[in-house]
């Protein structure tokens, strides 16, 4: 119990709870099942990407190319759908190609970061502009709508096993799988170890380059899955649909308590971060607040959350037993 009270997820959990209570009191719609499912469905893409970004951030890296990778794969999905129109294979092809292409693109980021020691923010900035440029060049920015997508894919998008949209289930499955990976497998523990202290991790026999290759490839693979979810959610392909989305993804991870310098981050925390952004947006809409206020509130909450985190950490440090060091 005391472990739960001290965890860095607590702060965000409390904010989320307070916000939800306030919304439940003021709006009769908020606490209905439909509305909650809508929030989850609308934020599944953000959630999936944020889960991948959590691993990258734990290793002390960052990936600003996620939005461009996701957009590129939605376009590939669109192209596949058109060329394989309405055979059962188109669904199989999409589900195989999207994560695979994503993982390959992620691997390129991983190679740049791991092998050449280019700072992750710069390396992924470079791949971002290459990919975004290529996507726009290929599509000319043209939008694709549901009439271009195969019937089988549209049926999949509408599928609701147990009354819950399949998109939400994919989000949950990704979260559960990644949580297990991070906490109960060798590669997952290596990710955490590397973030905590790269030198110690190396001396403990962990091959740091492989860990980096893995997290960026995994991020790319999840971007592929997010691209499928996005295409199913909007029933269309918009090559410009993800402009600037990478910063929202990073914001969700950071709100969830991950340390941007590496070493700490958790899947439950990130999900809370995603939910906070989602609930806030939903609440502002339900409360008929001018949409222009949304960014201001989001920005203020990010500032408050990160400041709270730093102040708390400083206080903990001050409370620790002091060791006198002779100069």
């Amino acid at each position, binding site marked *: 119990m005391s472990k739960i009270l001290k965890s860095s997820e607590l702060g965000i959990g409390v904010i989320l709870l307070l916000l939800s209570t306030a919304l439940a009191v003021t709006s009769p719609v908020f606490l209905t099942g439909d509305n909650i499912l809508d929030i989850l469905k609308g934020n599944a893409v953000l959630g999936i990407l944020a889960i991948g970004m959590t691993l990258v951030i734990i290793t002390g890296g960052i990936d600003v190319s996620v939005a461009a990778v996701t957009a590129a794969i939605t376009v590939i999905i669109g192209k596949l759908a058109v060329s394989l129109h309405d055979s059962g294979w188109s669904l199989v092809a999409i589900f195989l190609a999207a994560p695979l292409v994503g993982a390959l693109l992620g691997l390129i980021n991983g190679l740049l970061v791991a092998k050449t020691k280019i700072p992750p923010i*710069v390396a992924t900035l470079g791949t971002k*502009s290459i990919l975004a440029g290529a996507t726009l060049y290929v599509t000319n920015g043209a939008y694709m709508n549901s009439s271009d997508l195969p019937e089988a894919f549209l049926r999949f998008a509408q599928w609701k096993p147990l009354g819950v949209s399949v998109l939400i289930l994919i989000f949950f499955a990704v979260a559960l799988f990644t949580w297990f990976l991070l906490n109960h497998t060798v590669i997952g523990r290596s990710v955490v170890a590397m973030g905590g202290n790269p030198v110690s991790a190396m001396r403990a026999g962990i091959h740091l380059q492989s860990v980096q290759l893995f997290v960026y490839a995994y991020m790319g693979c999840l971007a592929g899955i997010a691209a499928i979810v996005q295409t199913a959610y909007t029933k269309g392909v918009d090559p410009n649909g993800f402009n600037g989305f990478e910063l929202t993804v990073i914001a969700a991870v950071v709100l969830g308590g991950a340390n941007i310098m590496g070493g700490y981050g958790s899947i439950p925390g990130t999900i809370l971060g995603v939910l906070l952004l989602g609930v806030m947006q939903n609440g502002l809409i339900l409360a008929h607040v001018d949409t222009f*206020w949304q960014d201001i509130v989001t920005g203020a909450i990010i500032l408050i959350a990160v400041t709270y985190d730093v102040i708390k950490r400083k206080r903990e440090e001050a409370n620790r037993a002091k060791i006198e060091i002779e100069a």
Partner: protein
Amino acid sequence: MNFLSKEWILGYVFAGLFLLMTLFVPGFFEAYNLINMLFQLPELGILSLGMMVVLLTAGIDLSITFLAALAGVIVATLLTNGYSVPVSILAGVATALAGGLLNGFFIAVVGVSPILVTLGTMTLFEGIVLLLTKGNSISGFPESYSLIGNGLLGAVPIPILIFAAIAVILSILLNKTAWGRSVYMFGNNPTATLFSGINTTRVVLWVYLFAALMAAVAAIIMTSRYNSAKVDIGSSYLLQSIAVAVLGGTSISGGYGKVIGVVLAVGIFQIISNGLNLLGVSSMVIDMLMGTILIGVLLINYVSAKRKQSQTA
């Protein structure tokens, strides 16, 4: 003189590209086109210099372009409501400085990491701009204001003169003043700098104020040149300004970077995009090329650093 330093290499690339474009791109080496480039380049150049100073302290400023948009919108709102040009500009600069102070306060005083603070303030500034403009653009400025971005002094465009003045002043500030040297020191080793008796909080605070000032100047040039202000003015410059600073030799982990390098890098960006544009290459391909160049330069840096290391070992 080390003729193989990063800055000299950038110089060779700049000269080589200029020569190539002159020889092979019709219309490149014409007065009209050259002057056009001198009008276009300062916006990105000024933002990149602001970004460079932040990078020198191992920080980053993601809010710089939306702060510019905010300053631009404030100036535009005042101008269209009949305030005089100097008053409007002062108000825009003051707004930007207040934003820079907000960044500086959280980063230098509270100690939150720069990427997080500026991620938050970026969203915040964007929201304020949206609230002020309702997503619309503001236009219709007095003649004297549009002179700043479109005017010529003799045969030289005014924006490039502003850029040149800023580059010279910044170069002096960084190399000849206590603040400038402290910026480099802080970037190399914050703890050692603090223990040398330097008020690091104040040094970092001024860094973000300087970046904010650059945002304001760039905003004034942009709004004046386009004769309008809206939320996404200059937003594409955010990642470009980081790319230019890094291409110009600035170390993203702090401590190294020179004004001349960044100036040459902006020039290289401008020559490439202008030359390819004249050849009819689509702007998307140019984006891809910029990304390739960024990664290419870093790979070259990596290989040459490694070779140097193996020679000394």
